[in-house]
């Protein structure tokens, strides 16, 4: 099978002796929507930096659609579009020029570049801003400009390093829809994000990186199966002053006055509704609280930190 991205034993060491990546292995299948998660300084951006040639690796192999970046760098790059974490375009250039210039770097003639730039600027709601110098754009527009720039050469693999950082909820949702559409059309997407709700909503497969090591690499479904408790948010017909005491269930009222009930694996929802019925509480709607991945993530990172500390103590 050809992977969109295949990483073997990737190492990054700095002259100070700090090892940012300790020989990680990672595979992302073609067509996947993949999340690379981890706390700050875990090695996410370093990994993606090496894949996109912005960071020199110290060891290991990276292949993009089978093209090794050591031997077929040009072919690997042609398949890759990169949206970095920080704004990295010329602040004095106009929006349209930034996108068409990027197309030119990929060898796309100006006439074709203009067509492609118009397509993506329209899709991302920036067409009206095409003649605006990029520094005049809002933060959300700048993020969308970087996405348009990354897509102008129609890459098969799109890498986004925290694409919705600092973006308001409405815009974030529209960017999610756009990325989902791109993925449906066949573009493989890898993203890093601090919004675990984002990874849960969009991604099918997930890797968690911590201290330069992959501590988990699996499907979102498998990962969520590990949850021993799931939290449901219940909107009530009549508001209650305090969280009710329900036998076998822990409940809390959230800031919106909705009831959050924790349901353990195997407990079943019927038992919860029986308990609510007993107290005369009627539920008008229900949803899963979108923090399941966050719970798991925090737990895994904490477990990993404990294990690292334990090993350090044993070594000492």
């Amino acid at each position: 099978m050809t992977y969109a991205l295949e990483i073997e034993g990737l190492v990054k060491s700095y002259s100070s002796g700090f090892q940012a990546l300790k020989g990680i292995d990672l595979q992302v299948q073609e067509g996947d929507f993949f999340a690379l998660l981890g706390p700050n300084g875990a090695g996410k951006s370093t990994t993606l930096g090496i894949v996109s040639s912005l960071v020199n690796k110290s060891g290991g192999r990276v292949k993009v659609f089978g093209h090794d970046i050591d031997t077929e760098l040009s072919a690997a790059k042609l398949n890759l579009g990169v949206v970095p974490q920080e704004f990295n375009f010329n602040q004095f250039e106009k929006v349209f020029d930034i996108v068409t210039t990027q197309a030119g770097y990929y060898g796309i003639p100006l006439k074709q570049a203009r067509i492609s730039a118009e397509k993506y600027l329209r899709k991302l709601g920036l067409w009206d801003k095409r003649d605006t110098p990029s520094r005049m754009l809002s933060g959300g527009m700048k993020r969308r400009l970087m996405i348009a720039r990354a897509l102008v050469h129609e890459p098969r693999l799109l890498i986004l390093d925290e694409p919705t950082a600092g973006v308001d909820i409405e815009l974030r949702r529209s960017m999610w829809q756009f990325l989902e559409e791109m993925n449906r059309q066949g573009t493989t997407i890898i993203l890093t994000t601090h919004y675990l709700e984002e990874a849960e909503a969009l991604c099918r497969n997930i890797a968690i990186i911590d201290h330069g090591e992959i501590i988990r690499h699996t499907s979102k479904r498998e990962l969520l199966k590990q949850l021993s408790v799931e939290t449901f948010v219940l909107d009530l017909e009549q508001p209650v002053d305090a969280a009710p005491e329900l036998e076998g269930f822990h409940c809390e009222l959230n800031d919106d006055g909705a009831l959050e009930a924790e349901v353990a694996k195997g407990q079943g929802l019927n038992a919860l509704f029986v308990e609510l019925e007993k107290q005369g509480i009627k539920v008008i709607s229900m949803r899963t609280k979108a923090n399941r991945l966050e719970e798991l993530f925090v737990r895994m990172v904490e477990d990993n930190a404990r294990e690292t500390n334990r090993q350090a103590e044993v070594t000492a």
Partner: protein
Amino acid sequence: MTLHALWTAFCTIVLREIRRFTRIWPQTLLPPAVTMTLYFIIFGNLIGSRIGEMGGFDYMQFIVPGLIMMAVITNSYANVVSSFFSMKFQRSIEELLVSPVPNWTILAGYVAGGMARGLSIGLVVTLLSLAFTRLSIHSLPMVVMTVFLTSALFSLGGFINAMLATKFDDISIVPTFVLTPLTYLGGVFYSIDMLPGFWQGVSMANPILYMVNGFRFGILGVSDVNPFVSLGMILVFIVLLATIALRMLARGKGIRH
């Protein structure tokens, strides 16, 4: 990348460079025109009329080739060093680094961009000089080769300076403390025949002397040094600096972590 794609990428870099220096023309195109006009008026007309002849030509005619070359050198260098360092500073250099453009195409694109500005200014200064004196051309191939190669050489110098620079101060140190003194002492305003023997020897170690004299030979037919030695030296320096620049790009000096 195919040859056609490489050509497109090269043209994209060059056009972006031209767009940049024409967009900020009050900073790039206007100042050298004003400065050189002042040189023509003060050194050529006012002071030059009291100096008399130099190298068999009136003083204004003698200094014009040197002033054209000075404009070409400083502007070729300034364009690449400021443009490339700005891209590093704003991190927009990453646009190029993630793309499949090979290092030699990036270098060629920036050098061509520097040459575009250097030669444009050279042309402007030449046209301005015609308001003060008459110019005849002794050897057109020599003029063209010297000015093109010198412009390429100093564009390469600007590129290396920008790669090494970590702050804005670093991009003004070389032009101020190296380039300007070497240009002024490179025979722009005088013939080294006027100097005592020792200082003539010292002057021969100044590479800009060869470029100014090569160009002066092309226009006036007189030179303090053999013009073919001038061309040879420029070519050697071009090969040397291009090799250094490509090695720095391959290692990602200052642009990759």
